[in-house]
């Protein structure tokens, strides 16, 4: 066991430590059962590993009843009202319309089982039954956030999509080639600052992270560690 893993394990003795496919930049800490980077950066352009977030994929007819209930139509990402708790508080779930008849629900770390249950309940309550699949992808995918005003310049080096305000405004979602990988891209601005979420296969996570850091080198991109709840 390496030193940084031992430190992470001792910091959170509640259970086994889950690891992102992206090696955490030191110092390393344990947050919500995940080994994450505790590095803090105030650079203008930051790259953050958000893999600990709960990631649940939903597939259903693109024009069915669940599509209307879920929110987040194809090409858009929205916080869904379907996930408010009994008091009506926002449960911090982002529903991304990642494909025709395909959605990605992103929630706080450790909430995946609850999210799956809620989605299954939502599907079961439909007046006319539809063929729906709900799969927890949390440990099978990587999620990266890039934030800063120069993020369009960074992305333009590795992605061919028009990142202008008219084509991809805040909340836009699309799947395209990013650094020659199939990546779900979501524009998710933070406090008025440009920010994008990039979601890819777990096995490609480290490569994509390195490719983004490399492409952002000329803009001063730095690693920023994970801070709960992840999606602020």
């Amino acid at each position: 066991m390496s030193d940084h893993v031992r430190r992470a394990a001792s910091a959170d003795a509640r259970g086994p430590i889950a690891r992102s496919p992206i090696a955490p930049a030191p110092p390393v800490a344990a947050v919500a059962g995940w080994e994450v980077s505790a590095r803090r950066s105030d650079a203008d352009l930051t790259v953050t590993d958000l893999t600990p977030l709960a990631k649940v994929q939903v597939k259903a007819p693109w024009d069915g009843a669940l599509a209307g209930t879920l929110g987040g139509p194809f090409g858009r990402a929205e916080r869904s009202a379907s996930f408010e708790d009994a008091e009506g508080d926002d449960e911090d779930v982002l529903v991304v319309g990642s494909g025709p008849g395909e959605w990605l629900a992103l929630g706080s770390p450790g909430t995946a089982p609850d999210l799956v249950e809620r989605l299954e309940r939502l599907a079961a309550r439909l007046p006319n039954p539809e063929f729906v699949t709900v799969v927890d992808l949390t440990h099978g995918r990587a999620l990266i956030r890039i934030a800063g005003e120069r993020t369009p310049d960074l992305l333009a080096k590795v992605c061919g999509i028009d990142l202008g305000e008219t084509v991809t405004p805040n909340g836009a979602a699309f799947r395209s080639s990013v650094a020659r990988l199939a990546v779900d891209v979501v524009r998710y601005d933070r406090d008025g600052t440009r920010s994008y979420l990039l979601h890819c296969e777990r096995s490609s996570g480290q490569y994509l992270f390195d490719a983004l850091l490399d492409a952002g080198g000329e803009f001063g991109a730095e690693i920023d560690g994970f801070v709960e709840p992840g999606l602020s």
Partner: protein
Amino acid sequence: MILLPCPWCGPRNVAEFGYVGEAGPRPDPASAGPEEWRGYLYGRANPCGWVAESWYHRMGCRRYISVERHTLSNEVRPLATEGAGR
């Protein structure tokens, strides 16, 4: 660069797609003979001119689309799309 008109995602670089092949009607399994099946599976017209093709948008919506492409100029125009509902 060739841009293919995906009915779901809009015009995208051809590098995002997988080439499936010339599109044509599938023979009726109940009545087609071996020669007809062989022609359907392996025979290609490969004309110099417009040809109907299927492409798979593997880095996008993951749907199959049909387009017409001019094999000399690589000009592309949309064709009726399989499975797309809009």
